[in-house]
């Protein structure tokens, strides 16, 4: 069974799972874990969008 994902959806799924693990392991209490997980997710997705725009500008 194979799966085909677009570049963006693959990056988005990656961000979700990595952020969950980072949130749980890098902070001590539940509130901080959720906040840090959301922060990591925002940074991942933001980084993807910024990198996408940078590549678009380089291509032009």
């Amino acid at each position: 069974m194979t799966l085909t994902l677009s570049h963006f959806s693959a990056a988005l799924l990656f961000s979700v799972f990595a952020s969950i693990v980072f949130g749980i392991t890098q902070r001590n209490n539940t509130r901080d874990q959720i906040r840090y997980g959301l922060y990591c997710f925002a940074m991942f997705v933001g980084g993807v969008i910024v990198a996408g725009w940078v590549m678009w500008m380089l291509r032009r």
Partner: protein
Amino acid sequence: MANPPTTKNEAIATKASAQPITVMSVLAPAVGWLIPGAGHLIQKRWIRGLLLMGSIVIMFVIGLMLEGHVYQPNGGDILDMLGFVGDVGAGGLYILSQAMNWGHGAISHATADYGTKYLIVAGLLNFISVADAYHIAIGKKP
């Protein structure tokens, strides 16, 4: 003025003796490596354990479904060896993939490289999870 070496050594020795090796401090990382998230589950951190297990297992499965490459121990190339180090972090999942001969097919589409990265990162995240289980076991983290 800095502390004399003897005082510093005493402080380190006191700190080390304050964290004795317990059964759980050995068992939790070992079980956590073999089954992602299980190191937390055996310490009754149910939600954290299930979230870690779900995240790491799903990442590994998606990596396989994207037809990612599972690295072998004797890759030869330095990048293959690093890939192996990442993959082997997934513990039981890596052993299972080797036993079932998964992750050795020909790459047939452009995003398959994402699969390889998913597999490596799943293993690396499990290493972090194992370290976290150890910190819980020694009382460094609640």
